[in-house]
């Protein structure tokens, strides 16, 4: 299934444009995510971070631009062309998006049951392993509604890892979690990256998460990549937009849409 021959960047986007109505949310985004790195995308809420992530995972049709995932152009890929790629990537959604009608165990097992020919006892062991990985071994029989938000998110993480993806997408992985749980999730992201060499794209507005996991940071502003560099470069830059965001100052060049309108 794997194609070790392809050594280029994991994700490449060129001139990505996506608008909703008259609103150009993405206005020419050029992004390269190298193999094995953890790229963190930061930006104010409403700057198009989520739109960027959803465009890359194929949830939106693009208005313009190209996306290449693992060397393949997916900008106008059909469902059949998407399938093999989707088995090689995992997505952690902001709210977890666990299947509420299934138990925790069934949630994690589903991708394996559907996409592999593994025998049922093997799948059960795999499920146990994935849940142990996120520190939730033994919760197989519970329903998602019985779990706290943080636990749901970790189960979702275990599910996203079910097929040992090469690329992981994280949509606000720490939002809504208490600091300890957020720290635990950050450590998991780093572990997966280092131990399983999973390429990761993290969308966040939590600077702690950004500092903890990033090997490179990109700031999205007004539909374009405004800044790109290491965590150290982020800390030392004197770009006023980046400074305002990083320091969390309400006044400065960046204005929220609601604030600008009001």
């Amino acid at each position, binding site marked *: 299934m794997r194609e070790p021959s392809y050594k280029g960047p994991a994700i490449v986007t060129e001139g990505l444009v996506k608008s909703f109505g008259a609103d150009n949310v993405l206005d020419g985004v050029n992004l390269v995510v190298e193999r094995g790195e953890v790229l963190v995308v930061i930006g104010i809420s409403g700057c198009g971070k989520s739109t960027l992530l*959803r465009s890359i*995972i*194929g*949830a939106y049709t693009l208005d313009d631009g190209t996306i290449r995932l693992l060397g393949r152009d997916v900008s106008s890929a059909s*469902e059949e062309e*998407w*399938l093999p790629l*989707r*088995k090689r*990537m*995992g*997505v952690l*959604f*902001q*709210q977890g*998006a*666990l*299947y*509420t009608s299934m138990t925790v165990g069934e949630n994690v097992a*589903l*991708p394996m049951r*559907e*996409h592999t020919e593994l025998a049922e006892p093997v799948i059960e062991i795999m499920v146990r392993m994935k849940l142990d990985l996120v520190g939730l071994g033994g919760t197989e029989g519970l329903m998602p509604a019985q779990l706290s938000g943080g636990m749901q998110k970790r189960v*979702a993480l275990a*599910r996203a890892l*079910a*097929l040992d993806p090469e690329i992981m997408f994280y949509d606000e992985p720490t939002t809504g979690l208490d600091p300890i749980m957020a720290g635990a999730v950050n450590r998991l992201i780093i572990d997966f990256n280092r131990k399983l060499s999973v390429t990761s794209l993290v969308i966040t507005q939590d600077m702690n998460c950004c500092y903890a996991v990033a090997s490179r940071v990109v700031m999205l502003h007004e539909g374009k990549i405004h800044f790109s560099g290491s965590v150290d470069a982020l800390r030392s830059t004197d770009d006023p937009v980046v400074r305002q965001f990083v320091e969390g100052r309400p006044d400065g060049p960046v204005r929220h849409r609601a604030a600008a309108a009001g």
Partner: protein
Amino acid sequence: MVLEEFFGRTGAKARAFFRVLGEMFALLGLSVYWSMSVVAGRARIRRSDLFVQMVRVGVDALPIVVLCNVFVGMILAVSTAELLDSLGVLSWTAQVVGVATTRELSPLMTAIIMSGFVGAAMAAEIGAMTASEEVLALETSALNPIRFLVVPRLWAVMAMLPCLTVIADVAGMFGGYLIGTLFFGIGPVRYITLNNSSLYLKDIIAGLIKAEAFAVIITIVACQQGLAVRGGAVGVGRATTNSVVYSIFLLIFSNLFFATLFNYVMM
């Protein structure tokens, strides 16, 4: 000015309706495609999903379907017996009820009950899944939502609605029997004999054909509305309401089509 505004609004609504109708046909096409794939063994659905849905659609809906159709039979008997009696043919009540239930009322009534009982629940469930990104999560795990969510529901409703319709036929006739024998004094044996003499296999089969079409309408409308949800709880509520409104409209409209077809073309 007023007219312009009136027709403008009506036009916009009509356009929205036809757009939704187009999406429903698109979903129907994809559902047929995935159903074929499953039948051909190129894709699979989880058998447990199918059974869960069949229980929800069939077994759980049985009491309400039976009760409503008994009442429909009673209403028919009450409202025709008086008239038939004045014409001196009181016992024809049995035939009137028998023909009306099998040919028209029990398939339509059952489908309308099911669009509320099953369609609304389905639209709300799939709508909530869409709103909470569960559907997107399915897609990104390379699980087609139509194969995974729509096909089992479609098959379950298509399997159960004809069964419910047959039971509804019996329930309707039983309602007529209760009124005919208890209130109008038609002899039980005579009522049953007359009732049976009015039954034609082709009426019952026509009812079953309609039930299959109604099953498709209920499921596809509910799933289309559920999958099209945008914007949280408000969107789910709107999808649920629209699902019931659209499906009742389409059920009655298609019933008109079938009535014409069976009466003039296939006679």
